[in-house]
Every structure is written in C-alpha cells, then in structure tokens.
C-alpha cells in the first residue's frame, strides 16, 4: 500500500501520521504542498494535523487552494482514498470533498484531551476494524473542531450512514456530536480526533490502531 502524507508549511502532525502509517505497513512518501501532482500509484493520501498556513483566517482555507490539493481532489474523484485528521478534516471541508465546516469550539478554548468516541459505522475501510456502536478513546487537540452543517446535510449524512464517529460527551459543540464523516463513496474520511496519537503502548492507548489496520487490510486486498 502506498501512502502520501501531505506537508503544508504549518503541518505539525505529518511525521506522526507517517510513523503510524509506516508502522501499519504502508510505503509512505511526504508530498510538499507546492507539488502539482501526487507520486504515481498512491493509494491513500493522508492530510495531517497542524496549522497549514497559520490558519489565522478560516482553518484550511488557504491550504485548500494549494497545488497539491487540486491533485488530491482529482485523486478522490478517481476513487482514491483520502484521510484528513484534524487540520486535514478542515482542509477537506474547504476543498468541498466533504460537506460542512469546522467552527470555533463552543467553549472558545483550545482543547487537548482524550475523548470518548462512538464508532457509528463499520462500513468503511477506516472503520471496519471496529464494531459499530463500540466506544473508543482518542485524543483531540483543536481550537476549531465544532462541526457544522445545515439540517439537510446532517440528516443526509446520518441517513446514508456516513457519520463515522460521534463524541460520547461532545467537547466542542459539534452538531449531532459529529467527530468524523465519510464521503459518498466512503473513501474519504475526515475526523477531528487523532488516531495516530492513540497508536502505540507508550501513548497509553492503542484504540487508533485498528483504523490504520483496517485501511491496510482493505487497500492491500484492493
């Protein structure tokens, strides 16, 4: 499985993401934001956490207009897999690959702590390692993780089983407790929590491992 981890100038979880993907068996390449295309044969593009271009305006807005993002949209439209975590989720909503937007946390403060997530669906490469309805703990670390979409979109996401994770104790005001959502073809996942920070024993929590393992299994057999 070949994965590309995107590096914007303000990405700061790019290494963490690459470490988790490599440890899960992926062949990882780092892709610079000014690159016009992706390397050949990429199965998965991972957009990591961080502050892509400082995010002083709308998080991910400038990143979504970078050359590499045009290539990522093409990749997704060809049926490629894209995982956006934290800032990556913000970028994905800005590119339009996923609906909705991430607003400032309802409490107006940055929050870094492990939160409870309910796995809402196991019907995706990312979540097939989990049992639908099960609860896991995964760290969040964001200032703008308050998922917003209008009623129609939320109803549609729920109706199409595209809500991947919800918060068990909503930390940021997200509508319908949404922590992560899937694209229509279920190959693009955006989520605010950081599965790569719940990956090894030394993190004190390995609940994120199965997301990567599931992805590897699915993509290796694809």
């Amino acid at each position, binding site marked *: 499985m070949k994965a590309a981890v995107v590096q914007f100038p303000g990405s700061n979880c790019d290494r963490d993401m690459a470490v*988790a993907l490599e440890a899960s068996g992926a062949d990882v390449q780092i892709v610079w934001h000014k690159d016009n295309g992706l390397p050949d044969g990429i199965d998965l593009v991972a957009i990591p956490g961080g*502050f892509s271009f400082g995010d002083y305006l709308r998080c991910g807005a400038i990143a979504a207009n970078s050359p590499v993002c045009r290539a990522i949209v093409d990749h997704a439209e060809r049926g490629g897999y894209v995982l956006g975590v934290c800032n990556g989720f913000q970028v994905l909503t800005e590119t339009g690959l996923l609906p909705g937007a991430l607003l400032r946390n309802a409490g107006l403060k940055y929050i870094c702590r492990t939160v409870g997530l309910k796995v809402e669906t196991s019907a995706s490469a990312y979540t097939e390692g989990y049992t639908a309805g099960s609860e896991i703990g995964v760290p969040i*670390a964001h200032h703008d993780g308050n998922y917003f979409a209008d009623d129609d979109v939320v109803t549609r996401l729920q109706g199409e089983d595209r809500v991947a994770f919800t918060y068990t104790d909503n930390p940021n005001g997200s509508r319908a407790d949404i922590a992560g959502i899937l694209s229509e073809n279920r190959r693009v996942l955006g989520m605010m929590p950081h599965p790569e920070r719940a990956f090894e024993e030394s993190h004190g929590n390995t609940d994120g491992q199965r997301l990567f393992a599931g992805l590897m299994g699915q993509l290796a057999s694809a």
Partner: protein
Amino acid sequence: MQEPAITQDLISAHGLSPSEYDRILEIIGREPTFTELGIFSAMWNEHCSYKSSKKWLRTLPTEGPQVICGPGENAGIVDIGDGQCIVFKMESHNHPSYIEPYQGAATGVGGILRDVFTMGARPIAAMNSLSFGEPGHPKTRQLVHGVVEGVGGYGNCFGVPTVGGEVRFHPAYNGNCLVNAFAAGLADTDKIFYSAASGVGMPVVYLGAKTGRDGVGGATMASAEFDDTIEDKRPTVQVGDPFTEKRLMEATLELMATGAVISIQDMGAAGLTCSAVEMGDKGGLGVKLNLEAVPQREDNMTAYEMMLSESQERMLMVLKPELEAEARAVFEKWDLDFAIVGETIPEDRFLILHNGEVKADLPLATLSGSAPEYDRPWVETPPAEDLADVPNIDPIDGLKALLSSPNYAAKQWVYDQYDSQVMADTIRQPGQGAGIVRVHGTAKAIAFTSDVTPRYVKANPVEGGKQAVAEAYRNLTSVGATPLATTDNMNFGNPEKPEIMGQFVGAIKGIGEAVAALDMPIVSGNVSLYNETDGQGILPTPTIGAVGLLKSHDEMILGTARDGHVALLIGETAGHLGQSALLAEVFNREDGDAPAVDLDAEKRHGDFIRQNRQWIDACTDLSDGGLALAAFEMAEAANTGVTLDAADTQTLFAEDQARYLVACNFDKAEALMAAAGQAGVPIQAVGKFGGSDITMGGISAPLTDLAALYRGTFADTFA
C-alpha cells in the same frame, strides 16, 4: 531624516544613568548619535547585560561530565548518550505578559523555542511556570485567560508538546505576573551550532520574518519598574506569528544540514543589535551592516528603529559564501526572507550604514564586553521569626481548603489548552509531576519539571533556593529519571534595594549548593529583575527547570496506586509547618521559617528510589500540602480511596523535605522496607489505598466529593 539631539531627558528615557552615559563618552570620545545611544541602551540594559547579577551568576556550578555547553550560548546542552543531546533553557517574559497577556506570553514561548533551534536542535518539549496575583484581584482573570491562551496559541501552532509547568497565585504578583517559558530540543552532538562568527568578509545574512516597529525598546522596558504609565508601554510588546516561527525552524534545520552555516544567532531582545554584536564579539571580528538591505514590513523605518526592533521570528547568520545558492533555495522553499545585510570585517568595529550614511560606528568588543557590572549592596535576609502555634484541625477540612484553592487544585483547565501530545512521543502529560517525552525512535525518554516555592524563598532565600532544586530533583526521581542538569530563571524585584539584592544573593547560594550536591549543574538561565509595581516587589521566584534521563522504558515509574496497595512514606517527618500551604490557605498566615533542606538526605533518598524501582508501582514527592495532599492526589489519579493512619495536623500537612510517597503491594512493600533498612533510609507504612473514601485519622469524606472539588476549583474560579 534628522535624528533627535542627545539631551539629558533622552538619555534617561533610554534607561541609562548619568554615570553610564559618561562611560559611553569615555569609550567613544565623542557624543553618540541617536542610533548609537539606542544601541548602548539595548546592550547595557539589565535584561541583556546582566549587570546586577553577573557577579553572582558566576558562582554557580555549571560543569559536569554530562555538560556539553554551559551558560553563555543561546541555551545549555547536556549529553544523553548515543551521540545525542538535549538543548534547553528557560526564559522570562514577565513585563510584556502583564502589559499584553496573549502576545507577551506567546512571544515568550517563541523566543525560547528560537533559542533552542538556533543551536541545531528540534524542540521536543515545552513547559511554563506562571505566577499570577490573587484569584480575586480584578486583573488576574484577564491575565490567566490571556497568558494561557498565548502560551497555547504559540506552542500548539508551532507544534511542540507542552508537558509540564506550574501555576501559582499570590497577592505579591497582583501588579506583576511572571511568565517563565522553558523549551528543550533534541540534537545530534556532532551537529550543534554556535554563535561565534569566523572568517573575514563572510556574508551576514538576515533570515525569517520582516522587521517592523514592534518591540522597539522592549528590552529597556523589561528592565524598568512598572508604574501607572504602564498602559503607554503596550506598543513595546511584540506580536508573535507561530506559523512563521514553525517555517523558520524547519528552514533553519534544513539550512544547517546543507553545511552553509558558519554561525547563527536568533534575534531576541534588542534584535539586530544584540545578535550582530554577539556573533562578532564571540568570533573576535567586527560587523558591518547595510540597513537598506534589511527586509522591512513598514515604510520609512529609521536606522534606530531597525537596530532596536524586536520583531519576532528572525535570525542572523554568517554564511559560507560558496553555498549561498543552496541556502537561499531553502528559505525560498519556505517562503521566508533571506537577505545579505552585511559582512564580517577584520577590525573591531560595529559599523551601521543606512543608504550610505554612517548611523553608528562603535568599537564592537568594547560595546559587548564593557557593559557596566555592578556589585550592588545587599543585606542578608534576617532569620525568620519562630512559627506561632498552629492549632490542630480536622484533616478533611484542611484538605478541602487546599483543594478549593487554585494553587493546589487540578490545573487541567490550563493544560487542556496546550497540545501536550503533538509529535506523538509524549509519555506523561502535564498535571502530574514531571512530564516525559520519548526520544523519537529510541527507547530513551527525557523527564522535565519546573519548580520553586516562592514563600520559602522569601522567608529564607538560601534554603528556599535549595528547596527549588531539591523539589525538581524529587519530581524527576519520582518517575524514575536520573537528573542531568538545570536551567534557572531568576525573577526578583528591584536589585537596587539591598534587601532584594540580598534575596537574590541568598537564592543563588542555595541553588549553587543544591545543584552541586545533587549533580545537576546549571547550564543556562535568565535573570528578570525590577519585577515591582509602585515599589512593591514580587515574591522572590527563582524558577528551576530541570531535565532528567530515562535510559529505557524499564526505568520509568509510571504506575498508579491500586486497591490494597500499601502507602509507604520515605524520609523523615519532623512536622515542619512554617511557610506551609496549610498555613497559607487555612490560616491565612505566612510565618515561620522555610523547611531546611538536607541535601545528603535528598541524594540518598533519590538514589534509593532509582535503585529500588522494581518494588515501586507509583511514586510522588511530598511538597506543598505534605502527606495529606500527596496521598489524595495519588488516590485520585488511581480513582481509589486511601486511609492514612495519622490524625495530627503536623504529620499530615508538614512540608519536611526529602520525602516521597510510594504505593505498592504488600510483598513489594516488605522488600522495599528491607532495602531501606539496609540503606539507612527512613521508611514507614502510613496507610493503605482502597475503598471509596479519603480517610485521615478516622475522619472520612467520599473520594468523589473531594475529586469534584479538586477538579472543579480552577474552572469555577476562572472559566
């Protein structure tokens, strides 16, 4: 543009005393230009020159086999084996944070991160030690929110995990909060970069963000007392841009890998002036700068403004000219400015040209080396009066008083606002003693702590200074780490007052004795004086930041207490309640002496913990709040109850030093007690973990109630 004439008012507005001005005349043999006056003021202010403290700082132990670089460079460096080292320092940003809390704190974090990556190290951990006025003071809430958000806003975006720190409240900080920022980075021992320039005619390159008018005169401001004109000083606070700093760090580390860097220095206090002078002085060279080449953010900037600007996220480098193209390409990749602004010259000269006009022409070595040095008069702090009687109190009431004070309540409201896990190597997060970060890709880990008990230092500067080091030693020991070295951030009042200078001298003496005895030399540090408002000084606050090594995961003590575990107390309890947390929070008293620190006992007990870690599941040191608070915190972390046999206030709340609380099962407890007996280390069983209550001397309260208090106080006070 016409420069202002040099008048008496202008001289004193630059913080220069008449005798200092006379010295300038003597050095250059003529009246300085306006720009030169600014340069002298920048180099000679307390913040940059350490003129009041140098004499005493020299007495500190700074050497040891583990030390690669002691004080004098951007940060200290300590060896962690396998060709790797940790680069670290702590620095204050007190005055800017009081004036403009968010930006003051943010740029404090930015400055210390730059100090670390300037030396070739990638920052891997940050901490911050914050001291605020009393919680009910009208200014405190705004400062707490602003400072915490500023620390988080900068560090989170930059991408360094914040893994530790302190937050305290005391009326003495009402008019002058303290923000001490610590950063540590990881480097290869053979790839460290220093600031000394070498080679004549080498290009001096400006890197990073553009120069604006922000922070002009900031270091001079930081060296003055506050009064009611403080709001006018807001424009001297710089504005931080962590996104640019992140790019500057990546670009700098990439640049270093190209081999193009001869020497490099970040632009911190007094910006271009300090960095250029320092590189020239350390290399025995002169420096010529052409200011029109400096990337500028604003129009019509003068030489004076450019030389004194404290715009953030900038560096100065001496470049190998043959590698200019490679170096430039790195900065273009990261969209940062790269401008050749001058060159090294053979003569001892600091020559500043702007559009062909000479704006300053000073002897560089003299400018750097002849800063005034004062042997300020000082008086020894008088011995503390004896402690008046302390009545026995209901131990649960005593504990509740501590838990309902923001000083001793859980600080997760603060730590949740810091990204403590970015880089995915954090093993222990803030809020529970020392933080731990793994050395990426190895089995090693580094423990970090920052400590000081200002009440103790005020009562007894020597013992208080020792205690700050001893507590740092114990916090590192409690997670199984071997303490390596220390950085000191000395925050004091006006050094021109003999009693304040006496506090400083006493604290340095205590710190020096302790770091020598505990083998954790001082490798870097910072002095912040004039922390006074309207003549009222802060509590003397020598913050100690310390670093310890864990050679493997097996060395870590990371467990929690369990139902049925024995509570063992290591060390001697004499019942010292002077200057204790209980006294302050329950009786509103700050009397008596600080607890005495027996450095031999500290070393013996610390070594004992490390040598017997196989018997220890959970360990914490005893400090503020004594046995009662330590046992509660250990129980709360494990979500279990604890029963302590003792009932008397002295045993439960005394703050005697060199003590640890350990939790382990009965068999391990027996083994540990046997080992202690052989080692001559005092140990006793003081209670048992289990159940759902906190019980002391037969009086109980439900853990859930006390935990709610402990977890809720901070947010209830400030949210």
